[in-house]
């Protein structure tokens, strides 16, 4: 996968846990154009191991001299967010993928309902730029833990005015999703990005109120779950590697020098799908891509987030 080399031009501490990074092309010039909701995957070299995390692009899609990403320091960081917060300085060089959009605005929507929780606000910032440019009808509903954790709320208040609604958890303000979804005009699409409980609540509430599936959009960048170590056989590469407890299958395959396809690294896009040839244990599917029937068949696995509880697993790569 071709990569872009960027240099960190600025770092801003936005909230106690969130840092905003401005990235510019190391050899100067313009970065590739992108659309609202896009992300890039940042490759980090942590103790000789390549670690890849996806981050939403927050800048205006129309401006391509710099990319903007925000990183929340995770309490249980697997290394990526801590590395970005502690090791990356102005002038540091990073390798990033070209932008990919798995959270695009539905162009035929008549109204866009954006639901953000915490750091899940980031993809909406570029989407809002697109919505403002096209004059589309939208509303933002943004919840966060406490006043000091409301990243970018000043910017959003200014840009979105009465279209933005804020919910501060510590002040007892909660979104009433049922009430919100019950009064939307036909042709509304809902988009959610935030903690798992919020994403699940939005999906379930919208479905329970009869919203068609193609009007419901979500994105989550969850770290791959940890598990028990196991042996992974790469049939086409004729290799046998270990998947440690704290690394994903995809990361382990990459660490072994095998070029594996990927896009979202969050179990959403399906790009990294691998054929399962054999195993002596059970697959643990954590993706949102395979159907329940496909998961049950045991023939496919998404190595970015899924793993196995087994002695060995053989995949066709």
């Amino acid at each position, binding site marked *: 996968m071709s990569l872009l080399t960027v240099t960190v031009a600025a770092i801003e501490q936005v909230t106690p846990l969130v840092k905003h990074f401005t990235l510019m092309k190391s050899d100067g010039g313009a970065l590739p154009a992108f659309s609202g909701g896009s992300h890039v995957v940042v490759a980090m070299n942590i103790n000789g191991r390549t670690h890849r995390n996806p981050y939403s692009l927050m800048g205006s899609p129309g401006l391509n001299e710099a990319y903007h990403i925000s990183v929340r320091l995770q309490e249980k960081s697997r290394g990526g967010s801590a590395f970005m917060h502690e090791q990356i300085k102005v002038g540091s060089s990073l390798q990033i993928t070209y932008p990919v959009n798995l959270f695009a605005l539905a162009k*035929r*929507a*008549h*109204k866009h309902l954006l639901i953000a929780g915490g750091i899940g606000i980031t993809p909406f910032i570029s989407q809002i730029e697109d919505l403002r440019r096209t004059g589309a009808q939208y509303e933002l509903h943004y919840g966060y833990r406490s006043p000091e954790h409301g990243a970018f709320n000043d910017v959003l208040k200014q840009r979105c005015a009465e279209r933005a609604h804020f919910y501060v958890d510590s002040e007892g303000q909660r979104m009433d999703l049922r009430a919100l*979804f*019950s*009064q*939307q*005009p*036909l*042709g*509304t699409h809902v988009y959610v990005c935030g903690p798992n409980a919020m994403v699940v609540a939005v999906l379930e509430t919208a*479905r*329970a*109120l*009869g*919203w*068609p599936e*193609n*009007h419901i959009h979500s994105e989550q960048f969850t770290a791959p779950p940890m598990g028990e170590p196991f042996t992974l056989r790469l049939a086409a590469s004729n290799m046998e590697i270990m998947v440690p407890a704290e690394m994903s299958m995809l990361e382990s395959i990459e660490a072994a020098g095998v070029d594996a396809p990927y896009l979202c690294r969050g179990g959403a896009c399906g790009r990294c799908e691998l054929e399962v040839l054999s195993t002596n244990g059970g697959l643990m599917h954590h993706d949102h891509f395979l159907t329940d029937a496909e998961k049950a068949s045991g023939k496919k696995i998404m190595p970015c987030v899924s793993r196995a509880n087994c002695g060995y697993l053989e995949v066709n790569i």
Partner: protein
Amino acid sequence: MERGYWIRSKPVYSTLIWNQQATAHLVVAEGVGGGMAVLKLFQQMHPEHPITVLYADHEQGSVDYSATLQRVVPEGLQLYATDGAALQAVKAYLPQARMGLRIYVAGSEKFMWEIAGICTEYGIENDEICKELTGTLARSVYCVHCKGITHDVHSNVTACVDCGRMLFVRDHFSRRLGAYMGLMVDAEAPGVLPEIEEIYP
């Protein structure tokens, strides 16, 4: 037709089935077949959320389901004398509708795709609409030469109403136009036509 031959764009219609999650229901139907489809729908259950049924009862023939519908439909039944009047009623209904509404349509293909076209203006995609083809297999045919549309075509070959070319009716379907593709059948050998047969009664 060649066995196993299948065109991806050709719509596959199902039967009307209530959506259990819907918070409101709009049922639109025309003709005797459409009336029966609505009656079958109410055989499944009487949903608890609000129901609106718009029925174009234009076939005053031996069978008339409107009286039965008036007994069966618990609320919201409106009868119209023409398809056009029912379409106008759909246009009047949609602006105040909210997400959670599910739409069910039964009737000819022309009728269903005219309603799908109206719904598109309100951001409802056609695959969100439950459709049941009833009454006729008649096709609307889009002339790829002059862009005219000939309605109510029952045969494999038909004359374009606009340019008069003899068109072979294909299975390629445009959801935007609600019509099948029609291609000049005797372009290479003028006047040499295949046997014209009624295959869309």
